[in-house]
């Protein structure tokens, strides 16, 4: 535990807090980008800042690193004030910044030498760990997008940082490169490093983060574990299938519309979709088995963090109010919106 973290400038800050932000406000001209934001990151956590472009995520982490001066608010990062103690704080943070680069002609091994302080880890070992050993003599401009991101990760981890800030880490990477980078972040987590991850990729936040804060217009709309956010904002699972016979038995439709947790049953010809909470999936499956058929095109959609984010950022009235009306022959939509 860092002894400096005991030095608190914010009431209520606990000794295991790595980042504590209260009432952060930042405007560019007349445009307010961060508007009264509170944030806590505890030691060993991976915390995600999620939200659409322009939500104020990058400005927030830039203020945390001392790269931008907040207009208002109190910040404490690893026991330091990022504004007045930036020089002491920055060496403790490893960061991968959005839209930043290295000099084009700087070679990979030279970049490692340039960024390595006295307490740095073995750069060659890190390069090997991130699959860049063969590119040691390559110029930065010749690296692919994935290689650049991996090099930024190497540089972010080089000086044994206590906090790692990763801003749009996998933007523009192909799926395989994304998985490689995710694996690297998971290794960081296992090693106990605290990570603040800025992303608008919800699958990334769901795969990596212990907690996620969803931001819009510079404010935190909600925060919690990915599962908590999904349960709060995207609890509708859906199960759809095409009935293999010529006519869907009315008793089956009746049964499906009344299973526990079902909120809507939609029928389009022989295609049936049931929406409800996660438990609905099991009940619908059981009903189908009881009725002697398991459709080959059975499709299940489990709610994701992306659904939760979309629901949070673009709230609509609950479209799936629980209505268990008996389906009538010929009805296209039953128990929900037509």
């Amino acid at each position, binding site marked *: 535990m860092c002894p400096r973290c005991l030095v608190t400038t914010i009431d209520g800050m606990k000794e295991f807090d790595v980042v504590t932000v209260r009432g952060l406000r930042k405007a560019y001209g007349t445009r307010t980008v961060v508007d009264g934001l509170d944030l806590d990151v505890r030691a060993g956590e991976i915390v995600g800042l999620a939200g659409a472009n322009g939500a104020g995520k990058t400005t927030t982490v830039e203020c945390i*690193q001392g*790269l931008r001066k907040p207009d208002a608010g109190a910040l404490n990062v690893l026991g330091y004030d990022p504004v007045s103690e930036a*020089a002491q704080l*920055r*060496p403790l*943070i490893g*960061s991968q*910044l959005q*839209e*930043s*680069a*290295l*000099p084009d*002609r*700087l070679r990979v091994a*030279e970049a490692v*030498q*340039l*960024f*390595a*302080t*006295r307490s740095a880890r073995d750069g060659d070992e890190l390069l090997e760990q991130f699959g860049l050993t063969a590119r040691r003599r390559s110029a930065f401009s010749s690296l692919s997008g994935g290689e650049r991101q991996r090099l930024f990760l190497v*540089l972010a981890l080089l*000086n044994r940082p206590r906090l790692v800030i990763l801003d749009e880490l996998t933007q523009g990477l192909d799926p395989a490169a994304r998985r490689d980078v995710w694996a690297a972040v998971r290794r960081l987590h296992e090693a106990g490093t605290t990570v603040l991850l800025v992303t608008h990729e919800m699958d990334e936040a769901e795969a990596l983060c212990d907690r996620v804060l969803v931001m819009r217009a510079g404010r935190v709309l909600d925060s919690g574990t990915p599962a908590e956010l999904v349960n709060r904002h995207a609890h509708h699972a859906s199960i759809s299938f095409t009935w293999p016979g010529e006519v869907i038995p009315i008793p089956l439709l009746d049964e499906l519309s009344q299973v526990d947790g079902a909120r809507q049953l939609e029928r389009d010809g022989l295609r049936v979709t049931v929406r409800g909470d996660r438990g609905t999936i099991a009940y619908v499956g059981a009903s189908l088995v009881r009725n002697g058929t398991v459709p080959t095109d059975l499709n299940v959609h489990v709610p994701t963090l992306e659904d939760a984010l979309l629901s949070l950022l673009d709230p609509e009235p609950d479209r799936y109010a629980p209505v268990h009306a008996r389906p009538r022959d010929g009805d296209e939509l039953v128990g929900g919106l037509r």
Partner: protein
Amino acid sequence: MNRALGRLVRAELKLMTRDPLVLTFVFAFPIVTMLIIGGAFGTSPDPAFDNVNPSHWYVASYLTVVIGAIGLVMLPVHLASYRERGVMRRFAAAGFPRWSFAMAQLIVGLATTLVACALLLAVAAPVYGIPTVHDWWRVVAAFALGAVAFVGIGVLLGSVLPSARSAQAVGLLIFFPSFLLGAGGPPPHVMGSAVRHVAGPLPLTLLTNAVREPWLGLGTATGSLIAIAAVAAVAMVFASRRTAL
């Protein structure tokens, strides 16, 4: 030297040697143009050149072309490109103090000036000969103050101009008239009075006078030396403010 500064200087020096703009403008351009124009007017003392050997006149003048190219083209483009691409943000986030980057540019700019000028004299020596230096301390003082002044101007331009392209456009727009009117172009005696009036107060003209006159024994150029010292002071103050040096 501060360790972070040392690492930056080493990296920047390596990068300079790989930059085609530097190799072209700072090393090749002054040498090639000096060889061409130095031979264009012969080697006999000429009244248009204050009765000195025209080749020697240009050898003494072209050191300041190197200084001008570094301050008006190399540094602005280099720094603006770094800022535009987020390289400086990355350095700042990695804990490099802001002053260390500006100081590294100062050191690299001065080191490049010394190496490029030495190379220019090494090429000039077997072709035209190096003219005798009449007043060493004034020449050295003018050279040093001029190098500091133009590195300061370069850092200042690089910190103000928004992109590498704009830095290149503005830098070249300032460099070529300064070069033609104040250092590597025709001697002032053959210029019309209006052009001479425009050329006179240009920083590169002042610097060239301050180096060339005491070098060739044409005068002390004290006024030009004081003026270039003032330019150096002002440029460094503004560059320091812009870069938190």
